């Protein structure tokens, strides 16, 4: 019996929320990234549950998963894998790196050197690794869940724009409210450890859900609306660089996945608006002047969402 994408969301979200309390919207978006087969960057100050969320997501899916703890001495070969010479066989054999898993948890990704971070570029975009001119496909579905701490500067390396653009969404968890925090404390005392979470979705089910999400109906007017938002970021005076066409595609794909989490087979304008912040903000580069004025990408996206008319008269 096939399981719908909405049901996959329900299962995974319920599983994750056994550990991560009081953040249903973050969980929804994170699962949406999973369903959209997009990579997820979780960024926030320490102690808010970034790694916990990533671990919970990874544990909830029944496929393989690897955790790569990014440190300054991590080498690209540790991530992608290396060719090792076997004297007995007198030939080179490929030893796969950490990326060869369905879910890769790249913890503290900004602590890796730029050279090491770059090792993720190809696999995140093309879902394969090239070592010594030999291509190695990573298992599907493939999802990178990275975490990073935005406030520490010492010993960290800012992610290059090319890499940021490869993340479907950037989520910020934020501090919990009082009631949620109380539940978090209680869970810590007698709750579930992420490593104890059972896998609630197997790989074939997840792949079927991903395919279902891809087939969700998107009206042309909604696509035009998404493209208008992306184009508006490119024309905004406070932005040096706006969202790329990859950003527009990500906006629609994330909206498709979000619609699935609501149990819908079609995308609405509200879906686009809901994913606009996590999809677009990390793709926008402010002008120095705007940074001096302490403008934030979040403000600009909110401003654009307020100003750009939503389509209502489709003639349908």
């Amino acid at each position, binding site marked *: 019996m096939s399981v719908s994408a909405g049901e996959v969301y329900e299962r995974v979200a319920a599983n994750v929320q056994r550990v991560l309390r009081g953040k249903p919207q973050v969980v929804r978006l994170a699962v949406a990234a999973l369903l959209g087969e997009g990579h997820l960057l979780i960024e926030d100050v320490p102690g808010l549950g970034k790694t916990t969320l990533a671990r919970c997501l990874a544990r909830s899916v029944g496929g393989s998963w690897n955790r790569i703890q990014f440190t300054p001495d991590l080498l690209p070969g540790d991530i992608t894998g290396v060719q090792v010479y076997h004297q007995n066989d007198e030939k080179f054999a490929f030893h796969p790196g950490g990326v060869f898993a369905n879910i890769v948890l790249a913890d503290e990704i900004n602590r890796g050197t730029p050279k090491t971070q770059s090792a993720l570029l190809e696999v995140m975009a093309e879902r394969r690794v090239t070592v010594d001119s030999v291509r190695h496909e990573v298992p599907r579905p493939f999802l990178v869940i990275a975490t990073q701490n935005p406030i520490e500067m010492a010993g960290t390396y800012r992610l290059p724009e090319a890499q940021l653009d490869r993340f479907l969404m950037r989520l910020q968890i934020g501090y919990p409210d009082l009631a949620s925090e109380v539940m978090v404390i209680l869970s810590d005392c007698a709750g579930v450890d992420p490593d104890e979470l059972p896998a609630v979705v197997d790989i074939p089910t997840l792949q079927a859900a991903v395919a279902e999400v891809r087939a969700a109906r998107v*009206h042309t007017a909604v696509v035009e609306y998404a493209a208008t938002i992306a184009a508006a970021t490119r024309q905004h005076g406070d932005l040096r660089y706006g969202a790329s066409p990859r950003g527009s595609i990500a906006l629609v794909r994330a909206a498709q996945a979000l619609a699935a989490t609501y149990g819908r087979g079609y995308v609405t304008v509200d879906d686009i*608006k809901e994913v606009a912040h996590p999809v677009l903000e990390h793709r926008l580069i402010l002008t120095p002047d705007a940074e001096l004025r302490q403008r934030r990408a979040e403000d600009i996206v909110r401003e654009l969402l*307020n100003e*750009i008319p939503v389509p209502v008269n*489709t003639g349908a």
Partner: protein
Amino acid sequence: MRIRALWVLLASAIPGLLFAPVFGLRPLLLPIAVVLVACYAAVELCIRVKVLQAWRPLITAVLGLVALTFVLFGAPSVSGVVAGLTESWQLTLQSTWPVRPDAELMVFVPILVLLAAVLGLELLRWPALALLPSIAVLVLSQTFVALSGTTAVLAALGFAVVAAGLYMPVRPGLILVPTVVLGLVGAAVAALIDTGEPYSLRQSDSALVPLPRTISPLSEVGARLAKPETPVFSYTSSGPVDRWRLVVLTEFNGVTWEPANEYRRFGSQLDSPVSAPATRYSAKIQAPDGQWLPSQAMPASVTGTAPLVDPSTGALLLPERRGAVSYELNWWEPQAGDNLQDAALTSTGQPGGLGVIPPGIAELATRATAGMRPSFRTALVLEQYLRQNYNTATGGDLPTGSGWPQLRRFLLETKRGTSEQFAASYVALARIVGIPARLAVGYRAPRTPVGADTVVHNRDVYVWPEVSVAGVGWVPLDPMGGASGAGPAPSRLAQVTAKARAELPPTNQLPDPPLPASETDDDNGGGPAVWQVALLVVLGLVALLVLAVLAVPLVKVFRTLRRKRQTGTQGVVAAWLEAKDLMRAYGTRVTPGMTARDLARATSDRSIVDSLTGLAGQLDVALWSGAGATDGAVAEAWTSVRRIRRTLAGRSWGARLRAVFVIR
């Protein structure tokens, strides 16, 4: 953009229509409407085709000019546009008003409207500046003919409404009250301030047609009398005519008599210049030669040719005339009252001059009028004096000339002359004693029945004086007595003049003529009082205010009814738009990027949140699922709207009242 463009186009049309006193309203409507339609078409084109946006002023101007010239000239005409930009305004000033609705004359008005529209559209970003071109045209129209009283107030209010319409999107809700208050104050001020006689460009020298070199018909009188049987012109008249005038001479320098240089192009029609009731007659005239066309004292219109006219004398002049001309003349015949004998003379300034009066003439004038003060009766006494004491010259040796030497010889020595000497002497003597008089040259009408084809010969040439009588106009007299019996029947003026003449008592029994009526009384009898104008203005403004106040709720009701007629997806969308407008009317800030869910998040009322969330779901299904909307879904969407309306109706009276009248 479209709505604001329409406001600007309306603003540019208003000053164009203010030229209505010059051309009449009907001839202006079509060209102005064509220009506006062309301008709007250009705006629409540029909105739809983005690449043309930068060329909008050029496209608008070219489209407007092509459409305008096509309507006015029958085909796109560069020369027509050039004429409109150079001379048509001056030709208009040189014409009597209302002007003939010829394309060459009126083309400058729609061009001005087009100019104001093009500039206004380009300044749309700044609503106040967008009105400036129209206001400039308005000022120009006022230099032609200044508005006053109620019309001025209504035109100003028209501009105020347009300004309010332009500002409405910029400062919604803050415009209606200032517009009405400023309108009331402005109207009260305009109604109470007496600005006196307004300036008009018609008073400038450029408004007069330079008088061409002409041969005075007065100098031809002797020659014509020498060839009495030569036909001059023929006519068929619908009314009794006793005289035809060619020219009226007012300027006398002691040697020659000259016409006043006040000729204008004959417009479409002239009204009767006198307050007395007037009957309109017409005649078809064939005049084979000469620059001066036979006419009447108060011409109403001329068809068949386009002569110059001196409105104060009725003389028609065709400077460029070549060969015969046939035309139809309509004229006014004043129906003067019976008591002309007691009528006063016009007290306005004396026309013409007298040159150096020879000795003995002034004494003669006093003696001839028995020392009476100037009045119509005095004028008749002077006429009687000449009739009784002077003889008509007949035969071959006819005296000629009407300068002081000839008049002195006639008056003091020979006492024998033609109508030329009689009439010129009469005018000179009348002016000496203060009677406003002028000299008319023309023909006596032959005694043929009304409607018969009549030929006028040289023998009918005649010169007569005219005196200006208050309320009647210029009354022709006959000091020689040669015009009596002319024509099929005497005109009304000739009848009452003959009656007054018959009732004239002997010179030694003449009573002192009555004093002229006070001019102040005449003035008071004129136009409406200030309070009447003010009352009209206030009533108009109150009506406008009531209309403005009721307009908003009425428009909202009609909008809702129209929305409720929508079906399917559009029905659900219409319900959402209605809900959005409702929320906005109650003060919720609604941005273009808001969805129904966003709006639900912007309010705290649970019932409204639920209704909007439900509506959002219906909208999603209708718009994005591809399933469309059934009638049930539309009904459900409107149920949500009704719930929202009911919930909002529970708010304070102030909020509800504001929601009814706020323009959102």
